[in-house]
């Protein structure tokens, strides 16, 4: 057979794809993904919160990371030398991915100052290069053995202040540019 056995659609079958699905509402919160405390401080200027967030994420990582019976299974999902043996305290040992970053979110007040308190979560990098975090509710996508379900996050540990836009797209004709 010279044709695909199936031809599935994930998004297009339900509704036309909307541009920028991200929520652009006014909710004043700040969320970041950081690979180190230093990177977090550089962005937020709040070394106290960054340290606490890192420590809490590291603690949670052991409890919430996916659990695998052996190193091979874990490395199949998270890459070579990206897994460690862990123990749940009841002398059951298992393997889980190493934390490769952490999320920090804070509510912001009107004048742009971070309110007290924060949420943090460990971040893991899967074998495909994508970032993921433990699901907060039910319904995670990736579940490796036991442990919390993981959800993918399309994020980067980098942020930058945009100084201008619309520097691409000025040559486009009225009906597309594809060939």
């Amino acid at each position, binding site marked *: 057979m010279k044709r*695909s056995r199936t031809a599935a659609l994930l*998004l*297009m079958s339900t509704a036309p794809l909307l541009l920028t699905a991200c929520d652009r509402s006014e909710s004043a919160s700040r969320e970041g993904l950081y690979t180190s405390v230093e990177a977090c401080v550089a962005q937020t200027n709040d070394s106290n919160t960054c340290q606490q967030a890192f420590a809490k994420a590291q603690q949670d990582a052991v409890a919430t990371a996916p659990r695998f019976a052996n190193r091979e299974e874990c490395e199949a999902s998270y890459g070579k030398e990206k897994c460690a043996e862990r123990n749940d305290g009841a002398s059951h040992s298992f393997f889980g991915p190493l934390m490769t970053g952490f999320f920090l979110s804070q509510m912001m007040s009107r004048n742009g100052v971070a309110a007290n308190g924060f949420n943090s979560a460990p971040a893991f990098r899967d074998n495909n*290069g*994508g970032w993921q975090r433990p699901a907060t509710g039910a319904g995670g996508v990736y579940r490796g053995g036991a442990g919390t379900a993981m959800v993918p996050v399309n994020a980067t540990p980098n942020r930058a202040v945009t100084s201008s836009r619309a520097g*691409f797209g000025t040559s486009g004709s*009225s009906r597309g540019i594809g*060939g």
Partner: protein
Amino acid sequence: MRRVATAERPDWRAKAAACGFGFHTIDDAPYWDESAYYAFSLREIENDIEAPSEELHAMALDMVERIVGSEQHMQQLAIPEPYRDWIAQSWRERQPHLYGRMDFAYDGTGPAKLYELNYDTPTSLFEAAFFQWQWLEDQLARGRLPAGSDQFNSIYESLVEAFGTIARGIARPFHFAAVRDSVEDQGTVAYLRDCALQAGIDCGALAIEDIGISADGRFTDLDDQVIGCLFKLYPLEDMFRESFGQHLPHSGLQLIEPPWKALLSNKGILPLLWDAHHGHPNLLPAEFDAGGELPRGWVRKPLHSREGANIAMHLDDGRELRTDGPYRDGPCIRQACHPLTGFDGHYPLIGSWVVGDRACGIGIREDSSLVTQDSARFVPHAIVEEARGVLMA
């Protein structure tokens, strides 16, 4: 190869609406046209389209290796100086590419002849990969095609597989971008993004006009996140001359299609291929155009023309055809005139899809003129094994 008139599916417009295929009719003119299909034999598909596509693809990649080592070739292809090292580096790193489309003149007799490579911003993908596939399945189920009919079209499976293969090499966040107001381009990137998600790659979408730049020269999305990898359905050569283009080589932004595709989506590749493979049955004689009168039997094409714009054709019988367009001033090539064969007054051009490095399907667009332009309609195809007696007739 035959053109077969057939009954449309009564519900195809509803099916198009259900899968987000919004551009089946463009400016009140039909684009998707299933009042006919092209029937091929398996031998025609495998020997005359599939195998030559894979061979030409390999020849084209070999040529990239030669071009990046030659200032003269870079000059011939009119690659702006500031981008040459960056393009060469992207090839040395073998930055991943996804797809391309070769356009062939083919009528079932003699070898398919390569018109050009659309290796940077090919469109007509969704209709080839998905809607054409659905047409075949529906018409088989309705008994409107001979039992056992097939289609050269594993484009969808190849796309999902290709995304899965390059996933690890895609920087995050990964966004798909196209011109905001182009329904057709938006449809194409929506489909590609759909395939990437099916391969397990989380990814976003934004308009090419919404891309931002930071003070230190990094590209950002609407959320001020630095874009890791951008799939851009937007010509590299246009990006080069727009105001943000200067930042590309030092921004750290990964592009798909990668910078080295600028060497293949350029019609200058055609004379270079002809020089290197003189007399190849699937290539037409080609040379760089030094200006002057266009002799009979030759076609003049700008290096960067798309959608059949600014083509001048001087036929053997002395007739001259010209199309308008925005690509008036740039350098051109000449290619030996090999007019499309008419089927009942329609001129089909075969678009042969290469995903990853695999030839995996075709889509046919037919125009009522010898130059296939954006007015061309997409007509589905089927592989139909014909009874021996019919072949003899």
